[in-house]
């Protein structure tokens, strides 16, 4: 049994991952099928499911809706929720979809402070209030907004997004969209005649005129405010980009155009959904999909693939397995269990494979190298750190590499999850970034440099904790650790230097200067300089083992500042990832690293592992360090 434990664990986790890929068939409305339909939003083709998930993330910071209803816990997937919003908004309005955290804001809105999630109906009467506040805050620079003001803006944006979603497929208060559409087409002739007659100053049919103007203004609103472009282009041969809103397409009728079959399909879907006729709904869905498949096969395929990717949740699953592996690796140190260490190692391999599949999937969906924005940089740093940790584990078999691989993998995926709250993580790249060559070389190299510096820093932290608080850091182990850190710092120097200079060359190609002392450039330079300082200090014998470790921990600070800190300055050409919520966490991280370095500076006699070792405890402990020459220099 014990011998098989690693394999049993891996098999169990793999089964968990694989079964999630084959969900049971849906009863009733086929929300999943609907969720795969392609639309155009943020300049890219994506399935309704992505629209739903990213909207929910912005409104509720979750990708689905769970609440305790009258009959116990209730649950809506993102696509199910989107169906309600698009088609039966009076029901969607009752769902607790809006998250408000600020007690100050709750107080202002007179909402119960114990709750976190609220329905649109609860906020309906307060829209004016919120808008007034947000109008004022709009004038305040984002960097100078108070937490309260940020919450107001977030809520206002969520409300606007929600209301735009509501009129994406269906006019407000419409009950039978199919019939209304037919009616509009019938009333169009007399209505237009009345409009022309009125303009010519002749007698006109007031009834026909009024009806026409009223419907027209409704469709005009739909054209202007709809959130996603859901109607595929009429001539895909001419332009595959010319997607439009339902409103725009309906208004074409007034200019002699024809209604897209897509609008008729959407109307049929809305009508069937509102009439609670799953059979009709599914049939309409099927025929729309068929129509689409004949004309827009690549878009349909993109929608299906991205839907699959969304449902797979590779990074979430990898995260869970990393946590489990980390716990096992830590436990393995205490009971010295080879079985647990091996279990951790295998699990990390599994998590890393899932992590890799996720990154690969993203690359295919985007047609891009792995790192295109802050979100994907977090995912990639974790990925590279995990493989480095795995390599260390394979070489040393002491549980340390496993612990680092799983810890960095886990933490970076948590960071990525939080970055994803801002919305679409596959947004299109602005003109200057639109180059796969430089994204694949400069960005990947710099990010690998970040990963390696973090891994070296983490190794140093483990060295410090083990040496200070346990007596298990014997001579061989500490020597081995020092060698590991040294090797990883070499690796980090190689990649951060090459990456930084490649970045300079890219800047030379796009902005006309190799180096401009821009904050992001300086951030990358700091990592290079610091890693070079570590290596030279080591070669010159200026630092021994412990000094090396402290310098490596400081590398964590330098790297985190370069990765996140420079974006917070809000100056320079690279300031594309500005976010301030992370500032607090950055400060906490920097503080913790400073504290660790302070601990690392404690004299030998406070180190549990060194107490028995040093023959001259009180004489000159601080200056002597470990009294050994560095091994690998």
């Amino acid at each position: 049994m014990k011998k098989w434990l690693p394999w049993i664990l891996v098999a169990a986790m793999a089964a968990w991952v694989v079964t999630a890929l084959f969900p049971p068939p849906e009863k009733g409305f086929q929300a999943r099928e609907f969720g795969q339909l392609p639309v155009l939003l943020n300049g890219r083709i994506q399935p309704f499911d992505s629209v739903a998930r990213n909207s929910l993330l912005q409104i509720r910071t979750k990708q689905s809706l769970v609440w305790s209803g009258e009959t116990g816990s209730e649950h809506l997937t993102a696509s199910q929720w989107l169906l309600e919003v698009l088609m039966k908004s009076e029901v969607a309005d009752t769902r607790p979809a809006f998250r408000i955290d600020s007690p100050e804001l709750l107080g202002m809105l007179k909402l119960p402070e114990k709750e976190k999630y609220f329905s649109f109906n609860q906020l309906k009467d307060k829209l004016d209030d919120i808008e007034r506040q947000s109008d004022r805050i709009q004038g305040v620079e984002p960097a100078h907004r108070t937490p309260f003001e940020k919450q107001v803006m977030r809520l206002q944006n969520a409300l606007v997004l929600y209301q735009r979603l509501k009129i994406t497929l269906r006019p407000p208060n419409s009950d039978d969209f199919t019939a209304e559409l037919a009616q509009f087409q019938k009333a169009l002739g007399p209505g237009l005649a009345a409009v022309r007659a009125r303009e010519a100053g002749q007698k006109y049919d007031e009834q026909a005129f009024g009806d026409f103007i009223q419907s027209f203004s409704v469709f005009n609103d739909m054209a202007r405010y709809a959130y996603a472009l859901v109607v595929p282009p009429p001539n895909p041969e001419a332009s595959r980009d010319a997607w439009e809103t339902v409103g725009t397409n309906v208004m074409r009728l007034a200019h002699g155009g024809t209604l897209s079959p897509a609008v008729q399909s959407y109307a049929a879907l809305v009508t069937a959904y509102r009439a609670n006729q799953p059979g009709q709904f599914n049939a309409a869905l099927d025929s729309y999909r068929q129509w689409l498949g004949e004309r827009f096969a690549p878009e349909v395929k993109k929608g299906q693939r991205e839907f699959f990717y969304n449902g797979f949740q590779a990074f979430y699953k990898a995260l869970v397995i990393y946590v489990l592996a980390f716990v096992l690796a830590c436990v393995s140190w205490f009971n010295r269990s080879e079985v647990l260490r091996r279990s951790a190692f295998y699990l990390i391999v599994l998590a890393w494979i899932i992590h890799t599949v996720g990154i690969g999937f993203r690359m295919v969906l985007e047609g891009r190298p792995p790192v295109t924005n802050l979100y994907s940089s977090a995912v990639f740093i974790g990925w590279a750190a995990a493989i480095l940790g795995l390599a260390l584990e394979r070489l040393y078999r002491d549980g340390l590499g496993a612990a680092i691989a799983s810890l960095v993998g886990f933490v970076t995926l948590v960071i990525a999850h939080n970055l994803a709250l801002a919305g679409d993580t596959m947004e299109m790249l602005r003109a200057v970034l639109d180059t796969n060559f430089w994204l694949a070389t400069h960005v990947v190299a710099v990010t690998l440099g970040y990963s390696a510096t973090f891994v070296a820093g983490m190794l140093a932290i483990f060295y410090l904790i083990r040496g200070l608080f346990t007596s298990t850091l014997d001579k061989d182990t500490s020597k081995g650790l020092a060698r590991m850190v040294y090797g990883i710092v070499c690796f980090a120097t190689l990649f951060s230097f090459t990456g930084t200079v490649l970045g300079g060359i890219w800047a030379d190609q796009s902005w006309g200067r190799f180096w401009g002392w821009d904050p992001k450039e300086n951030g990358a330079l700091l990592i290079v300089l610091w890693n070079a300082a570590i290596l030279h200090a080591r070669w010159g014998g200026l630092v021994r083992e412990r000094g090396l470790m402290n310098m490596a921990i400081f590398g964590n600070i330098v790297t985190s500042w370069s990765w996140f800190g420079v974006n917070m300055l809000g100056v320079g050409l690279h300031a594309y990832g500005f976010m301030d919520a992370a500032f607090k966490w950055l400060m906490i991280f920097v503080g913790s690293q400073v504290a660790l370095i302070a601990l690392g500076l404690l004299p030998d006699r406070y180190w549990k592992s060194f107490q028995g070792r040093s023959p001259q405890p009180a004489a000159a402990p601080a200056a002597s360090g470990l009294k050994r020459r560095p091994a690998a220099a």
Partner: protein
Amino acid sequence: MLLDKLISFFTSLKLTVVCLALAVVLVFIGTLAQVDMGLYKAQNAFFRSFIVFWGPQGADWKIPVFPGGYLIGGVLLINLVAAHYKRFGFRRDKLGIIITHLGLILLLLGQLATDLLSRESNLHLRIGEARNYSESDRLTELAVIDTTDGDTEKVVAIPDSTLAEQREIRNAALPFTIRVKQYLANSSLSDQAQPGFEKCPATAGAGPRLWMKEEPRVTKMDARDVPSALLELEANGQSLGSWLVSEYLREPQSVTFAHHTYTLALRLRRYYKPFSLQLLDFRHDIYKGTEIPKNFSSRVRVRNAATGEDREALIYMNNPLRYGGLTFYQASFDPDDKGSILQVVHNPSWLTPYLACLLVGAGLTIQFLAHLIPFVKRRLTP
């Protein structure tokens, strides 16, 4: 004895580490300073200087507080060269390090050359327009143009740095001397009396109808100084009158003397080229349904009378045009999308980073693998 000490000081690894650590601190504070000072000023104060000075806000004294970029970079360079000369002979196991350091030396020297030799300017073209000169983005000049002959213009350009000395300027091509009575490095003009503005004492041209004000120098990155100057022209000991020239004044002001007509203009400094660039088309594409720019591109026609060359080229992001020792980049565009602004860079040492990157990358890889492969082999043999 002293020499030995000096040599051992300049070849020591300690010096390297100290310089690297100082560089880390300098880059960090230099980056933070950009928030207040703006990129351009912070760059000059911290990185393109030997010593960083500090003084309290508003005070007119400053004390040296930190070594600047040139000093640290210079010492590192000396340190590097000296160490190689003294300590490293050629050894096979040091090959990686030697190549790496060669690359670094090349990189540092190349950047120094760029700092000293490179010149940036802008070329603003509306669609259809052709120009044979580019303009500086912050330096200005006083152009005195003899327009007597309708077909050709004879231009005498006096840089703003000379105007700032506020002295008498003589030029063999001009029949009069120019006395700079007042030079405002940054200024505002007004056509009515306003608090803070003084009546312009000019006697001719547009000046007599204007009020002027000296403004503090601009530090923001996206703004610049707009200078004005009060000039008096003199010939044979007699004044021809005084003129206000300013970048705000677009209308040419002319003065006639000895049957020649001259126009006076304070304008952005111009750099003339032996060829011209015409903007044929400018494109600014965005992603459907968003404001995110997808592409900026300028189609230009290059015409060189001397070589008879006449061809088209497409300039877009990450794809500049290199021609005649200059590089033209897509930098900006007019709000109506009917004009394009190209950045023009003259940088004789632009290739050095490419070479340096290759050298350092190769050197580090060799060094890294030379340690890694035997190590892994050792670890994995049971």
